[in-house]
């Protein structure tokens, strides 16, 4: 049965829907690191907030799904700008300090959420609860939608970074802030934009994740854990690297899980990343320094 | 003069780029050997290959008759082959004196055990190396700034300090990558005098630089690299009047100046 192509197709889709969410988290994480040298240990918590935003907008206030999925990220990212002013700006260009300080922020966010929303898991009703049968492969529609939305977001993000003025400015600031300033780029503003975009992506990921899985104050831990691996694996600061890293990790986990079971999958996927690092110590698509 | 360093058909490719391509040359004992060539010609790569920082794609490096190809830098230093870098040349965060102590690993470090228990052997080695540090600092005119943080030194003094660090290992051959880049003419003259002093101690020198006044006055022989290969080779005055070298590297106006 395991060699049955329809099953394989199914695993691919399931693996991809999870990977695509991780990729969104990883992209924002890598953006913050790439541009401001900030290790955002609170990134998963913004995804958590995205999950709760979606919960309220869609499950509680019953907004149309499209409106909810568009508004939820904004509902997180706009207020988050206040946190940028209050907390993040102290940690720009300070790698270690940002790591610990933002770990503190992550703790504050998780336990405030716990006080507010309690520990139990909430469900966001599926917007697309059907199953699509395609050439014998059973595809849950919500998974396909997740992949689709993530792909759109990834595409939009790629377009923003590569084909727009603001993206150009962000990339320049990522390489050398001081010189970016001397080329006429308002780097403070660029930082704020990058922060906004990163949080937007995390919150969108959280909204999707919350709908496919469930919403709770602790839901951000796992995506951050995976994003951390994915981002370094892909080559820190590289967009295609993060995408590729996310896919690889998702696939190895789902394939190995299917064929060899859960614990082999964990050992093997970590072992594979370790080997990759030993033989390519600068990540998948990163450049040797 | 017997050959100290022999480089034989050395190549290094980066992907499709042949940074150094089938390069051969020898440096004799007591010689000051210059390498010039356009930017990207492969000069730094050649020095990296010889000093073990980069592994060659093919070819051989022989030092005092021993094959040292592909050995790591710290081994080569033990053989007597030291070098400075084009950019990072000093430990910026500590004093000049400390920089030199760090440079004197071979003479100074008695091993973990002796150093941990500060045995008499460790004490002797430390004293010997401290006096050598003092000697070298005096010799290179750095003793007055010995307690200054290296990063706070003027650029020219940093370059000299870079040489001092390398000299702490008592090398037989010292390779200098752009020792006078960014120095004024007067400072460059100082560095030239220093290098001559180094040679007078019996240390051979390989030097790369784009400052032609400096190179012409210093080198016994000059090798011109272009696209990783030898373009010309010989006495400075011959090389610098070679039309190929003028065309590729010096520029026509150089001839007039």
């Amino acid at each position, binding site marked *: 049965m395991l060699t049955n192509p329809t099953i394989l197709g199914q695993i691919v889709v399931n693996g991809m829907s999870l990977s695509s969410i991780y990729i969104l988290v990883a992209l924002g994480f890598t953006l913050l690191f790439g541009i401001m040298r900030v290790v955002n240990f609170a990134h998963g918590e913004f995804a958590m907030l995205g999950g709760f935003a979606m919960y309220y907008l869609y499950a509680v206030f019953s907004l149309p799904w499209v409106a909810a999925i568009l508004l939820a990220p904004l509902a997180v990212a706009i207020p988050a700008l206040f946190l940028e002013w209050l907390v993040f700006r102290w940690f720009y260009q300070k790698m270690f300090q940002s790591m610990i300080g933002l770990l503190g922020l992550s703790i504050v966010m998780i336990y405030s959420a716990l006080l507010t929303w309690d520990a139990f898991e909430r469900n966001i009703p599926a917007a697309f609860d059907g199953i699509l049968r395609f050439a014998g492969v059973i595809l849950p529609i919500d998974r396909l939608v997740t992949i689709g939305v993530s792909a759109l977001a990834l595409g939009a993000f790629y377009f923003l970074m590569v084909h727009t003025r603001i993206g*150009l400015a962000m990339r320049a600031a990522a*390489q050398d802030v001081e*010189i970016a300033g001397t*080329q006429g780029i308002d*780097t403070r503003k660029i930082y704020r934009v990058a922060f906004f975009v990163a949080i937007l992506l995390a919150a969108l990921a959280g909204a999707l994740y919350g709908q496919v899985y469930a919403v709770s104050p602790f839901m951000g831990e796992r995506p951050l854990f995976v994003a951390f691996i994915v981002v370094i694996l892909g080559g820190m600061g590289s967009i295609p690297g993060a995408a590729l890293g996310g896919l690889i990790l998702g696939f190895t986990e789902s394939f190995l899980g299917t064929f060899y079971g859960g614990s082999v999958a964990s050992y093997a996927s970590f072992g594979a990343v370790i080997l990759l690092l030993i033989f390519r110590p600068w990540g998948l698509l990163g450049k040797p320094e | 003069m017997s050959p100290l360093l022999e480089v034989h058909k050395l190549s290094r490719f980066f992907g499709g780029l042949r940074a150094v391509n089938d390069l051969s040359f020898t440096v004799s004992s007591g010689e000051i050997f210059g390498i010039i060539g356009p930017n990207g010609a492969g000069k730094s790569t050649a020095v990296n290959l010889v000093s073990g920082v980069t592994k060659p794609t093919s070819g051989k490096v022989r030092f005092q008759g021993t094959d040292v190809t592909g050995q790591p830098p710290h081994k080569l230093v033990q053989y007597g082959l030291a070098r400075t870098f084009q950019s990072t040349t000093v430990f910026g965060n500590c004093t000049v004196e400390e920089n030199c102590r760090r440079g004197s690993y071979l003479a100074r470090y008695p091993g973990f055990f002796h150093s941990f228990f500060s045995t008499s052997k460790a004490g002797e080695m430390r004293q010997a190396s401290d006096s050598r540090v003092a000697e070298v600092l005096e010799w290179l005119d750095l003793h007055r700034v010995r307690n200054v943080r290296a990063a706070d030194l003027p650029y020219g003094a940093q370059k000299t300090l870079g040489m001092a660090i390398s000299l702490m290992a008592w090398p037989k051959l010292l390779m200098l990558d752009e020792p006078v880049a960014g120095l004024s003419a007067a400072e460059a003259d100082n560095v030239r005098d220093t290098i001559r002093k180094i040679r007078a101690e019996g240390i051979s020198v390989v030097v790369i630089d784009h400052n032609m006044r400096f190179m012409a006055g210093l080198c016994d022989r000059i090798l011109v690299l272009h696209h990783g290969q030898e373009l010309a080779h010989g006495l400075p005055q011959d090389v610098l009047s070679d039309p190929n070298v003028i065309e*590729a590297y010096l520029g026509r106006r150089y001839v007039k100046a």
Partner: protein
Amino acid sequence: MSKLELRNVGVRYGNIVGTQELSLRLESAQTVALVGSNGAGKSSTLKAIMGLAKYPVGDILLAGKSIKQMPAFEIVRAGIGYSPEGRRVFGGMSVLENLKVGAYSRKGGEFEADLQRVFGYFPRLKERASQRAGSLSGGEQQMLAIGRALMARPSVFLLDEPSLGLAPVIVERIGDVLQEIQRAEQLSIILAEQNAAWALSIADQAVIVELGRVTMTGPAAEIAEDPRVQRAYLGI
């Protein structure tokens, strides 16, 4: 009124003096060579103008208006272009993208025309337009740093040691291009240089800086004849 004027500018790094009480004037379509040995304060002066030095003292006027308190990006928008010490091109971006960043501060649609103008000065950049800037040779990177600054169409251009680490033939080429640009665009240039012989050969005026202070100033040709300068900076 001078194009750019520095009045008693001082920059310090903790206890270390970058420059002090440094004054100079730059007229329209003029090149001033800022000559001095290592650590004399040339780069510090240019950084102070660009708003990169923390808490400078004194005043800096562009066409009579103070630009001292402005952040770097506004200074660029006010018309000052900067090619920093050590080139500092955006190594991970293509040559073309570097030039686009240079044009960032400019609004309006003449990007194409400006690009062609820079490619005209440095045809090599056109050949390498899609190459990663980090993989260019040193000379090419220097051309790119200059081209990038020109993309903003500055009226004042600050260059910090453009000859550093470059082959003689490239240095010569850069000198030619700078003069060509100045003729064509009435650009005012400050050229901070170690390579005094070269800098004095292309400048109109020269300022000698020592230990953060101006010690001599005058027409470049006269300065080049001064015996002290010849000894200290020209190696004659």
